[in-house]
Protein backbone atom coordinates (compact mmCIF):
# COMPACT_ATOMS: atom_id res chain seq x y z
CA UNK A 1 0.00 0.00 0.00
CA UNK A 2 1.23 3.48 -0.80
CA UNK A 3 1.35 6.09 1.93
CA UNK A 4 2.46 9.42 0.50
CA UNK A 5 4.33 11.77 2.82
CA UNK A 6 6.63 14.76 2.63
CA UNK A 7 9.68 15.72 4.65
CA UNK A 8 10.67 19.37 4.78
CA UNK A 9 14.34 20.01 5.48
CA UNK A 10 14.40 23.44 7.13
CA UNK A 11 18.19 23.52 6.87
CA UNK A 12 18.27 23.90 3.09
CA UNK A 13 15.21 26.06 2.33
CA UNK A 14 16.46 29.41 1.06
CA UNK A 15 13.05 31.07 0.74
CA UNK A 16 13.13 31.46 -3.05
CA UNK A 17 9.35 30.75 -3.20
CA UNK A 18 9.77 28.70 -6.38
CA UNK A 19 7.54 26.06 -4.76
CA UNK A 20 4.75 28.63 -4.41
CA UNK A 21 5.16 29.69 -8.04
CA UNK A 22 5.25 26.12 -9.38
CA UNK A 23 2.25 25.12 -7.29
CA UNK A 24 0.17 28.10 -8.34
CA UNK A 25 0.76 27.47 -12.05
CA UNK A 26 0.28 23.71 -11.79
CA UNK A 27 -2.94 24.03 -9.83
CA UNK A 28 -4.21 27.32 -11.27
CA UNK A 29 -4.59 28.97 -7.87
CA UNK A 30 -5.82 32.59 -7.61
CA UNK A 31 -2.38 34.21 -7.65
CA UNK A 32 -3.91 37.71 -7.61
CA UNK A 33 -4.87 37.15 -3.97
CA UNK A 34 -1.87 36.56 -1.66
CA UNK A 35 -4.05 34.80 0.87
CA UNK A 36 -4.90 32.02 -1.60
CA UNK A 37 -1.87 29.84 -2.17
CA UNK A 38 -1.83 26.11 -1.57
CA UNK A 39 1.63 26.35 -0.05
CA UNK A 40 3.56 29.14 1.67
CA UNK A 41 7.10 29.83 2.75
CA UNK A 42 7.07 31.93 5.90
CA UNK A 43 10.02 34.24 6.42
CA UNK A 44 10.74 34.08 10.14
CA UNK A 45 13.19 35.96 12.32
CA UNK A 46 13.60 35.13 15.98
CA UNK A 47 16.09 35.18 18.77
CA UNK A 48 17.52 31.88 19.90
CA UNK A 49 20.27 31.42 22.45
CA UNK A 50 21.12 35.11 22.32
CA UNK A 51 21.45 35.48 18.56
CA UNK A 52 19.10 36.30 15.76
CA UNK A 53 18.09 33.52 13.43
CA UNK A 54 16.37 33.84 10.05
CA UNK A 55 14.44 30.77 9.04
CA UNK A 56 12.30 29.92 6.04
CA UNK A 57 9.38 27.74 6.98
CA UNK A 58 7.47 26.05 4.14
CA UNK A 59 4.00 24.82 4.92
CA UNK A 60 1.17 23.08 3.10
CA UNK A 61 -1.71 20.73 3.83
CA UNK A 62 -0.54 17.99 6.20
CA UNK A 63 -2.72 15.32 4.51
CA UNK A 64 -3.67 14.15 8.01
CA UNK A 65 -4.35 10.50 8.86
CA UNK A 66 -7.30 11.74 10.92
CA UNK A 67 -8.38 14.83 9.00
CA UNK A 68 -10.87 17.01 10.92
CA UNK A 69 -11.70 18.81 7.65
CA UNK A 70 -13.17 15.60 6.19
CA UNK A 71 -15.39 14.69 9.14
CA UNK A 72 -17.05 18.14 9.25
CA UNK A 73 -17.86 18.24 5.50
CA UNK A 74 -21.65 17.91 5.11
CA UNK A 75 -21.64 17.26 1.34
CA UNK A 76 -18.93 14.63 0.95
CA UNK A 77 -16.98 17.04 -1.25
CA UNK A 78 -13.73 16.29 0.55
CA UNK A 79 -12.28 12.88 1.33
CA UNK A 80 -9.03 11.08 2.03
CA UNK A 81 -7.55 8.84 -0.65
CA UNK A 82 -6.31 5.42 0.52
CA UNK A 83 -2.81 6.52 -0.52
CA UNK A 84 -2.97 9.57 1.75
CA UNK A 85 -3.85 12.83 -0.01
CA UNK A 86 -6.97 14.66 1.17
CA UNK A 87 -8.85 15.92 -1.89
CA UNK A 88 -11.77 18.18 -2.81
CA UNK A 89 -14.31 17.79 -5.61
CA UNK A 90 -15.24 21.39 -6.54
CA UNK A 91 -18.36 20.14 -8.32
CA UNK A 92 -19.78 18.85 -5.02
CA UNK A 93 -18.50 21.49 -2.57
CA UNK A 94 -21.05 24.15 -1.55
CA UNK A 95 -18.40 26.26 0.17
CA UNK A 96 -19.64 26.46 3.75
CA UNK A 97 -15.99 26.65 4.89
CA UNK A 98 -16.55 24.37 7.87
CA UNK A 99 -13.51 22.40 6.65
CA UNK A 100 -11.36 25.54 6.66
CA UNK A 101 -12.37 26.29 10.23
CA UNK A 102 -11.73 22.69 11.25
CA UNK A 103 -8.20 22.68 9.78
CA UNK A 104 -5.63 23.58 12.45
CA UNK A 105 -3.04 24.28 9.71
CA UNK A 106 -4.88 26.97 7.74
CA UNK A 107 -4.47 24.81 4.65
CA UNK A 108 -7.80 25.63 2.98
CA UNK A 109 -8.99 28.77 1.26
CA UNK A 110 -12.07 29.76 -0.74
CA UNK A 111 -12.14 30.13 -4.53
CA UNK A 112 -15.01 32.52 -5.16
CA UNK A 113 -17.03 33.07 -8.33
CA UNK A 114 -14.97 36.23 -8.88
CA UNK A 115 -11.80 34.13 -8.67
CA UNK A 116 -13.18 31.70 -11.25
CA UNK A 117 -14.06 34.57 -13.60
CA UNK A 118 -10.60 36.05 -13.19
CA UNK A 119 -8.96 32.65 -13.68
CA UNK A 120 -10.80 32.33 -16.98
CA UNK A 121 -8.95 35.45 -18.19
CA UNK A 122 -5.66 34.73 -16.45
CA UNK A 123 -5.19 31.06 -17.33
CA UNK A 124 -7.27 31.12 -20.51
CA UNK A 125 -10.78 29.74 -20.93
CA UNK A 126 -9.60 26.73 -22.96
CA UNK A 127 -7.05 25.74 -20.31
CA UNK A 128 -9.19 26.39 -17.24
CA UNK A 129 -9.30 23.32 -15.03
CA UNK A 130 -11.43 24.74 -12.20
CA UNK A 131 -14.74 26.17 -13.43
CA UNK A 132 -16.56 25.96 -10.06
CA UNK A 133 -16.42 28.15 -6.95
CA UNK A 134 -15.36 25.92 -4.07
CA UNK A 135 -12.90 25.44 -1.25
CA UNK A 136 -9.37 24.58 -2.38
CA UNK A 137 -6.28 22.98 -0.87
CA UNK A 138 -3.06 21.10 -1.61
CA UNK A 139 -3.57 17.46 -2.60
CA UNK A 140 0.10 16.63 -3.20
CA UNK A 141 -0.61 17.40 -6.91
CA UNK A 142 -2.93 14.41 -7.26
CA UNK A 143 -3.04 14.66 -11.06
CA UNK A 144 0.75 14.54 -11.26
CA UNK A 145 0.89 11.55 -8.88
CA UNK A 146 -1.42 9.67 -11.26
CA UNK A 147 1.14 10.26 -14.02
CA UNK A 148 4.00 8.99 -11.85
CA UNK A 149 5.35 12.50 -11.18
CA UNK A 150 6.25 14.18 -7.92
CA UNK A 151 4.30 17.21 -6.67
CA UNK A 152 5.26 20.39 -8.53
CA UNK A 153 6.72 22.03 -5.41
CA UNK A 154 9.03 19.05 -4.85
CA UNK A 155 10.20 18.86 -8.44
CA UNK A 156 10.98 22.55 -8.61
CA UNK A 157 12.78 22.88 -5.26
CA UNK A 158 16.39 23.72 -6.10
CA UNK A 159 17.75 22.88 -2.65
CA UNK A 160 15.82 19.63 -2.13
CA UNK A 161 14.21 21.10 0.94
CA UNK A 162 11.05 19.18 0.05
CA UNK A 163 11.45 15.42 -0.07
CA UNK A 164 8.49 13.34 -1.22
CA UNK A 165 7.91 9.62 -1.12
CA UNK A 166 6.13 6.53 0.13
CA UNK A 167 6.21 5.95 3.89
CA UNK A 168 5.22 2.31 3.37
CA UNK A 169 8.35 1.72 1.30
CA UNK A 170 11.17 1.25 3.84
CA UNK A 171 13.75 2.05 1.15
CA UNK A 172 12.31 5.47 0.31
CA UNK A 173 14.22 8.50 1.54
CA UNK A 174 11.21 9.82 3.46
CA UNK A 175 10.92 6.50 5.32
CA UNK A 176 14.59 6.55 6.21
CA UNK A 177 14.44 10.14 7.42
CA UNK A 178 11.29 9.60 9.49
CA UNK A 179 12.84 6.38 10.91
CA UNK A 180 15.70 8.43 12.40
CA UNK A 181 13.22 9.79 14.93
CA UNK A 182 14.54 13.31 14.35
CA UNK A 183 11.52 14.59 12.43
CA UNK A 184 8.58 16.36 14.01
CA UNK A 185 5.06 17.20 12.93
CA UNK A 186 2.96 20.30 13.55
CA UNK A 187 0.45 20.36 16.41
CA UNK A 188 0.69 16.59 17.05
CA UNK A 189 -1.22 17.10 20.31
CA UNK A 190 -4.44 17.61 18.31
CA UNK A 191 -4.35 13.99 17.13
CA UNK A 192 -4.62 14.80 13.44
CA UNK A 193 -1.72 12.54 12.40
CA UNK A 194 0.08 14.83 9.91
CA UNK A 195 1.97 13.36 6.95
CA UNK A 196 4.23 16.36 6.47
CA UNK A 197 7.34 15.98 8.62
CA UNK A 198 9.85 18.69 9.47
CA UNK A 199 13.53 18.17 10.18
CA UNK A 200 16.05 20.80 11.20
CA UNK A 201 18.97 19.15 9.45
CA UNK A 202 19.30 15.84 7.59
CA UNK A 203 21.43 13.20 9.34
CA UNK A 204 24.89 12.85 7.72
CA UNK A 205 24.27 9.45 6.15
CA UNK A 206 21.08 10.55 4.39
CA UNK A 207 22.11 14.00 3.17
CA UNK A 208 23.55 12.72 -0.11
CA UNK A 209 20.81 10.23 -1.04
Amino acid at each position, binding site marked *: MTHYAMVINIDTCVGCNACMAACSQENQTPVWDP*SKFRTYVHDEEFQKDGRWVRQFFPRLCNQCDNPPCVTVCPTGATWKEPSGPVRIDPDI*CMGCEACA*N*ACPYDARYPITREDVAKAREYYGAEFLRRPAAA*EDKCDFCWDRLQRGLEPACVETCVTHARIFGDLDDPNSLVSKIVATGKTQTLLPELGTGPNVFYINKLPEGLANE
Partner: protein
Amino acid sequence: MNDSVHLVVTTATQDRWAALVIWYLFLGGLGAGLTAISVLSHRYFKASTALTLWGVFAGEAAMAIGSILLLFHLLDPLHVWRVLVPWNIFLNPTAWITWGTQFLIWAMVFAILYVWPLLYRAEALRRIPGLNWWFEIGIVRWSAEICERFATLLAWLTVILSLAVAVYTGLLLRSFPAVSLWHNPIVPALFTVSALSTALAFLLLVQYAVLRDHGPLAHAYERSDMVLIAIEMGLIAWLLYGFLPATGSGRASYELLMGNMGWIVGFLIFGLAVPFLIELVGSLRSWHSPVPVLAAAVLVLIGGFLLRHYFLQYGVYDFPWGNASHLGILGSDVVQHVIR
Protein backbone atom coordinates in the same frame (compact mmCIF):
# COMPACT_ATOMS: atom_id res chain seq x y z
CA MET B 1 21.70 24.73 17.23
CA ASN B 2 20.01 21.63 18.56
CA ASP B 3 18.25 19.04 16.45
CA SER B 4 14.64 20.12 16.89
CA VAL B 5 12.90 22.47 14.49
CA HIS B 6 12.34 25.92 15.95
CA LEU B 7 8.66 26.71 15.80
CA VAL B 8 7.54 30.31 15.93
CA VAL B 9 3.93 30.69 17.01
CA THR B 10 1.48 33.16 15.53
CA THR B 11 -1.82 33.67 17.26
CA ALA B 12 -4.57 34.87 14.93
CA THR B 13 -8.34 35.29 15.11
CA GLN B 14 -10.49 33.75 12.43
CA ASP B 15 -12.53 35.90 10.03
CA ARG B 16 -14.00 33.23 7.73
CA TRP B 17 -17.26 33.00 9.59
CA ALA B 18 -18.46 36.54 10.11
CA ALA B 19 -21.77 38.44 10.29
CA LEU B 20 -23.90 36.04 8.22
CA VAL B 21 -22.96 33.01 10.30
CA ILE B 22 -23.30 34.98 13.56
CA TRP B 23 -26.88 35.90 12.59
CA TYR B 24 -27.54 32.29 11.55
CA LEU B 25 -26.36 30.95 14.92
CA PHE B 26 -28.39 33.59 16.78
CA LEU B 27 -31.59 33.27 14.74
CA GLY B 28 -31.31 29.47 14.56
CA GLY B 29 -31.03 29.22 18.35
CA LEU B 30 -33.76 31.81 18.96
CA GLY B 31 -36.13 30.21 16.44
CA ALA B 32 -35.56 26.70 17.77
CA GLY B 33 -36.14 27.90 21.33
CA LEU B 34 -39.34 29.64 20.25
CA THR B 35 -40.88 26.59 18.58
CA ALA B 36 -39.87 24.29 21.45
CA ILE B 37 -41.19 26.53 24.25
CA SER B 38 -44.33 27.65 22.39
CA VAL B 39 -45.46 24.14 21.50
CA LEU B 40 -44.61 22.77 24.94
CA SER B 41 -46.44 25.67 26.62
CA HIS B 42 -49.53 25.14 24.48
CA ARG B 43 -49.61 21.40 25.00
CA TYR B 44 -49.01 21.29 28.74
CA PHE B 45 -49.17 24.79 30.25
CA LYS B 46 -52.35 26.27 28.76
CA ALA B 47 -50.66 28.88 26.60
CA SER B 48 -53.17 30.87 24.55
CA THR B 49 -53.63 30.20 20.86
CA ALA B 50 -52.45 33.73 20.05
CA LEU B 51 -49.21 33.33 22.00
CA THR B 52 -48.58 29.90 20.47
CA LEU B 53 -49.11 31.19 16.94
CA TRP B 54 -46.88 34.19 17.63
CA GLY B 55 -44.15 31.98 19.07
CA VAL B 56 -44.24 29.32 16.39
CA PHE B 57 -44.40 31.72 13.43
CA ALA B 58 -41.70 33.98 14.87
CA GLY B 59 -39.60 30.85 15.41
CA GLU B 60 -40.25 29.66 11.85
CA ALA B 61 -39.33 33.12 10.53
CA ALA B 62 -36.14 33.26 12.59
CA MET B 63 -34.97 29.83 11.42
CA ALA B 64 -35.92 30.57 7.81
CA ILE B 65 -34.18 33.97 7.75
CA GLY B 66 -31.10 32.49 9.43
CA SER B 67 -30.93 29.71 6.85
CA ILE B 68 -31.38 32.14 3.95
CA LEU B 69 -28.56 34.31 5.32
CA LEU B 70 -26.37 31.23 5.39
CA LEU B 71 -27.05 30.66 1.69
CA PHE B 72 -25.39 34.02 0.97
CA HIS B 73 -22.34 32.84 2.89
CA LEU B 74 -21.87 29.78 0.65
CA LEU B 75 -19.41 29.85 -2.23
CA ASP B 76 -21.86 27.93 -4.41
CA PRO B 77 -25.41 28.01 -2.98
CA LEU B 78 -26.75 25.78 -5.77
CA HIS B 79 -24.96 22.81 -4.22
CA VAL B 80 -26.90 23.21 -0.98
CA TRP B 81 -29.46 20.63 -2.14
CA ARG B 82 -27.01 17.94 -1.08
CA VAL B 83 -27.51 18.78 2.60
CA LEU B 84 -31.26 19.35 2.24
CA VAL B 85 -32.10 15.80 1.12
CA PRO B 86 -33.01 13.61 4.12
CA TRP B 87 -30.79 10.70 3.11
CA ASN B 88 -27.71 12.89 3.57
CA ILE B 89 -27.61 11.63 7.17
CA PHE B 90 -26.60 8.24 5.73
CA LEU B 91 -24.10 9.72 3.24
CA ASN B 92 -22.28 12.20 5.51
CA PRO B 93 -23.17 11.29 9.09
CA THR B 94 -19.95 12.61 10.66
CA ALA B 95 -20.72 16.27 9.90
CA TRP B 96 -22.85 18.20 12.38
CA ILE B 97 -24.11 20.45 9.57
CA THR B 98 -25.70 17.34 8.04
CA TRP B 99 -27.66 16.63 11.23
CA GLY B 100 -28.33 20.27 12.08
CA THR B 101 -29.88 20.93 8.67
CA GLN B 102 -32.23 17.97 9.04
CA PHE B 103 -33.09 18.90 12.65
CA LEU B 104 -33.92 22.42 11.48
CA ILE B 105 -36.02 21.36 8.48
CA TRP B 106 -38.08 18.82 10.42
CA ALA B 107 -38.48 21.04 13.49
CA MET B 108 -39.98 23.65 11.16
CA VAL B 109 -42.25 21.08 9.49
CA PHE B 110 -43.56 19.52 12.72
CA ALA B 111 -44.09 22.92 14.38
CA ILE B 112 -46.24 24.01 11.45
CA LEU B 113 -48.17 20.74 11.55
CA TYR B 114 -48.75 21.20 15.29
CA VAL B 115 -50.30 24.67 14.87
CA TRP B 116 -52.17 23.78 11.70
CA PRO B 117 -55.38 22.78 13.60
CA LEU B 118 -55.13 26.07 15.56
CA LEU B 119 -55.04 27.97 12.27
CA TYR B 120 -57.83 25.84 10.85
CA ARG B 121 -60.10 26.72 13.76
CA ALA B 122 -59.08 30.40 13.94
CA GLU B 123 -62.18 32.51 13.38
CA ALA B 124 -60.10 35.44 12.16
CA LEU B 125 -58.81 33.47 9.19
CA ARG B 126 -62.29 32.30 8.24
CA ARG B 127 -63.51 35.88 8.14
CA ILE B 128 -61.03 36.76 5.40
CA PRO B 129 -63.11 37.17 2.21
CA GLY B 130 -62.56 34.45 -0.33
CA LEU B 131 -60.78 32.15 2.10
CA ASN B 132 -63.73 30.53 3.81
CA TRP B 133 -64.46 28.00 1.06
CA TRP B 134 -60.88 26.81 1.28
CA PHE B 135 -61.49 25.51 4.80
CA GLU B 136 -64.32 23.33 3.52
CA ILE B 137 -62.14 21.33 1.13
CA GLY B 138 -62.10 17.73 2.31
CA ILE B 139 -58.37 17.23 2.43
CA VAL B 140 -57.81 20.50 4.31
CA ARG B 141 -60.32 19.52 6.98
CA TRP B 142 -58.93 15.99 7.08
CA SER B 143 -55.33 17.17 7.47
CA ALA B 144 -56.31 19.41 10.39
CA GLU B 145 -58.14 16.52 12.05
CA ILE B 146 -55.14 14.21 11.60
CA CYS B 147 -52.77 16.82 13.07
CA GLU B 148 -55.17 17.31 15.98
CA ARG B 149 -55.34 13.58 16.63
CA PHE B 150 -51.55 13.26 16.72
CA ALA B 151 -50.97 16.59 18.48
CA THR B 152 -49.00 15.11 21.38
CA LEU B 153 -46.69 13.22 19.04
CA LEU B 154 -46.21 16.34 16.87
CA ALA B 155 -45.53 18.42 19.98
CA TRP B 156 -42.80 16.12 21.22
CA LEU B 157 -41.24 15.79 17.77
CA THR B 158 -41.16 19.60 17.56
CA VAL B 159 -39.69 19.97 21.05
CA ILE B 160 -37.00 17.32 20.62
CA LEU B 161 -35.95 18.45 17.14
CA SER B 162 -35.97 22.13 18.15
CA LEU B 163 -33.78 21.40 21.16
CA ALA B 164 -31.51 19.43 18.82
CA VAL B 165 -31.18 22.53 16.60
CA ALA B 166 -30.19 24.64 19.62
CA VAL B 167 -27.63 22.03 20.75
CA TYR B 168 -26.35 21.69 17.18
CA THR B 169 -25.41 25.37 16.93
CA GLY B 170 -22.94 24.69 19.73
CA LEU B 171 -21.82 21.27 18.49
CA LEU B 172 -20.97 22.83 15.14
CA LEU B 173 -18.41 25.13 16.77
CA ARG B 174 -17.22 22.32 18.99
CA SER B 175 -16.15 20.27 15.96
CA PHE B 176 -13.24 22.62 15.17
CA PRO B 177 -10.35 21.19 17.21
CA ALA B 178 -7.78 23.98 16.98
CA VAL B 179 -9.86 26.70 18.63
CA SER B 180 -10.05 26.25 22.39
CA LEU B 181 -12.90 28.74 22.78
CA TRP B 182 -15.05 26.46 20.60
CA HIS B 183 -13.64 22.97 21.11
CA ASN B 184 -14.91 22.23 24.60
CA PRO B 185 -18.01 20.57 26.13
CA ILE B 186 -19.33 23.87 27.56
CA VAL B 187 -20.20 25.42 24.20
CA PRO B 188 -23.15 23.17 23.22
CA ALA B 189 -24.69 23.60 26.70
CA LEU B 190 -24.04 27.33 26.66
CA PHE B 191 -25.59 27.86 23.23
CA THR B 192 -28.62 25.74 24.18
CA VAL B 193 -29.24 27.64 27.41
CA SER B 194 -28.75 30.95 25.59
CA ALA B 195 -31.17 29.87 22.83
CA LEU B 196 -33.89 29.03 25.35
CA SER B 197 -33.24 32.23 27.30
CA THR B 198 -33.54 34.44 24.21
CA ALA B 199 -36.71 32.58 23.20
CA LEU B 200 -38.29 33.20 26.61
CA ALA B 201 -37.29 36.87 26.33
CA PHE B 202 -38.97 37.11 22.92
CA LEU B 203 -42.15 35.47 24.26
CA LEU B 204 -42.17 37.91 27.19
CA LEU B 205 -41.98 40.78 24.69
CA VAL B 206 -44.96 39.32 22.83
CA GLN B 207 -46.96 38.84 26.04
CA TYR B 208 -46.23 42.27 27.50
CA ALA B 209 -45.98 44.48 24.42
CA VAL B 210 -48.16 42.85 21.74
CA LEU B 211 -50.84 40.70 23.37
CA ARG B 212 -50.85 42.63 26.67
CA ASP B 213 -51.70 39.38 28.40
CA HIS B 214 -49.29 38.50 31.16
CA GLY B 215 -50.78 35.98 33.51
CA PRO B 216 -49.15 33.13 35.44
CA LEU B 217 -47.43 31.81 32.29
CA ALA B 218 -45.57 35.11 31.83
CA HIS B 219 -44.37 34.97 35.42
CA ALA B 220 -43.25 31.38 34.91
CA TYR B 221 -41.34 32.52 31.82
CA GLU B 222 -39.67 35.30 33.82
CA ARG B 223 -38.58 32.92 36.55
CA SER B 224 -37.41 30.31 34.04
CA ASP B 225 -35.43 32.97 32.19
CA MET B 226 -33.84 34.04 35.46
CA VAL B 227 -32.74 30.47 36.18
CA LEU B 228 -31.41 30.06 32.61
CA ILE B 229 -29.39 33.28 32.90
CA ALA B 230 -27.94 32.04 36.19
CA ILE B 231 -26.93 28.76 34.51
CA GLU B 232 -25.49 30.73 31.57
CA MET B 233 -23.37 32.84 33.92
CA GLY B 234 -22.09 29.67 35.59
CA LEU B 235 -21.23 28.09 32.24
CA ILE B 236 -19.42 31.27 31.08
CA ALA B 237 -17.36 31.32 34.29
CA TRP B 238 -16.57 27.61 33.92
CA LEU B 239 -15.45 28.16 30.33
CA LEU B 240 -13.35 31.26 31.06
CA TYR B 241 -11.62 29.87 34.13
CA GLY B 242 -11.87 26.11 33.71
CA PHE B 243 -11.09 25.50 30.04
CA LEU B 244 -9.47 28.51 28.37
CA PRO B 245 -6.35 28.71 30.59
CA ALA B 246 -5.28 25.23 29.43
CA THR B 247 -4.01 26.24 25.98
CA GLY B 248 -2.32 29.13 24.19
CA SER B 249 -5.34 29.51 21.91
CA GLY B 250 -7.64 29.58 24.94
CA ARG B 251 -5.52 32.12 26.82
CA ALA B 252 -5.48 34.39 23.77
CA SER B 253 -9.29 34.15 23.49
CA TYR B 254 -9.57 34.91 27.21
CA GLU B 255 -7.36 37.98 26.91
CA LEU B 256 -9.30 39.22 23.88
CA LEU B 257 -12.67 38.71 25.55
CA MET B 258 -11.74 40.18 28.92
CA GLY B 259 -10.02 43.11 27.23
CA ASN B 260 -13.10 44.04 25.25
CA MET B 261 -15.65 46.42 26.71
CA GLY B 262 -18.32 45.11 24.34
CA TRP B 263 -17.99 41.66 25.91
CA ILE B 264 -17.72 42.89 29.50
CA VAL B 265 -20.23 45.75 29.48
CA GLY B 266 -22.43 44.70 26.55
CA PHE B 267 -22.69 40.97 27.23
CA LEU B 268 -21.62 40.15 30.80
CA ILE B 269 -23.19 43.20 32.48
CA PHE B 270 -26.10 44.29 30.29
CA GLY B 271 -26.73 40.96 28.56
CA LEU B 272 -26.60 38.77 31.67
CA ALA B 273 -26.23 40.50 35.05
CA VAL B 274 -28.75 43.35 34.61
CA PRO B 275 -31.62 41.22 33.20
CA PHE B 276 -30.89 38.62 35.88
CA LEU B 277 -31.23 41.25 38.62
CA ILE B 278 -34.40 42.71 37.05
CA GLU B 279 -36.00 39.26 36.88
CA LEU B 280 -34.78 38.40 40.39
CA VAL B 281 -36.42 41.52 41.82
CA GLY B 282 -39.53 40.79 39.74
CA SER B 283 -39.80 37.29 41.18
CA LEU B 284 -39.38 38.53 44.77
CA ARG B 285 -41.89 41.38 44.46
CA SER B 286 -43.79 41.81 41.18
CA TRP B 287 -43.09 44.90 39.08
CA HIS B 288 -46.02 47.33 38.84
CA SER B 289 -44.97 48.42 35.39
CA PRO B 290 -44.19 46.24 32.37
CA VAL B 291 -41.17 48.41 31.52
CA PRO B 292 -38.56 46.50 33.60
CA VAL B 293 -39.65 43.15 32.13
CA LEU B 294 -39.56 44.55 28.60
CA ALA B 295 -36.14 46.08 29.24
CA ALA B 296 -34.80 42.78 30.58
CA ALA B 297 -36.19 40.91 27.56
CA VAL B 298 -34.57 43.31 25.09
CA LEU B 299 -31.25 43.08 26.95
CA VAL B 300 -31.38 39.27 26.91
CA LEU B 301 -31.96 39.27 23.14
CA ILE B 302 -29.07 41.68 22.53
CA GLY B 303 -26.92 39.61 24.90
CA GLY B 304 -27.71 36.43 22.98
CA PHE B 305 -26.53 38.04 19.77
CA LEU B 306 -23.39 39.46 21.40
CA LEU B 307 -22.48 36.03 22.82
CA ARG B 308 -22.36 34.55 19.33
CA HIS B 309 -20.70 37.63 17.89
CA TYR B 310 -17.78 37.53 20.32
CA PHE B 311 -17.51 33.75 20.15
CA LEU B 312 -16.93 33.88 16.42
CA GLN B 313 -14.84 37.05 16.43
CA TYR B 314 -12.46 35.77 19.09
CA GLY B 315 -12.00 32.18 17.95
CA VAL B 316 -8.20 32.01 18.03
CA TYR B 317 -5.82 29.77 16.09
CA ASP B 318 -2.32 29.04 17.34
CA PHE B 319 -0.31 28.59 14.14
CA PRO B 320 3.15 27.01 14.53
CA TRP B 321 4.79 29.38 12.07
CA GLY B 322 5.69 33.05 11.96
CA ASN B 323 4.01 35.96 10.20
CA ALA B 324 0.84 34.00 9.56
CA SER B 325 -1.13 37.17 9.06
CA HIS B 326 1.30 39.25 6.99
CA LEU B 327 -0.35 38.18 3.76
CA GLY B 328 -3.85 38.62 5.08
CA ILE B 329 -4.32 34.89 5.50
CA LEU B 330 -6.46 35.43 8.54
CA GLY B 331 -7.47 38.43 10.62
CA SER B 332 -4.84 39.58 13.05
CA ASP B 333 -6.35 41.23 16.09
CA VAL B 334 -3.56 39.76 18.14
CA VAL B 335 -0.21 38.61 16.85
CA GLN B 336 2.40 37.44 19.26
CA HIS B 337 5.62 35.63 18.58
CA VAL B 338 6.73 33.06 21.08
CA ILE B 339 9.73 30.85 20.73
CA ARG B 340 9.01 27.31 21.82
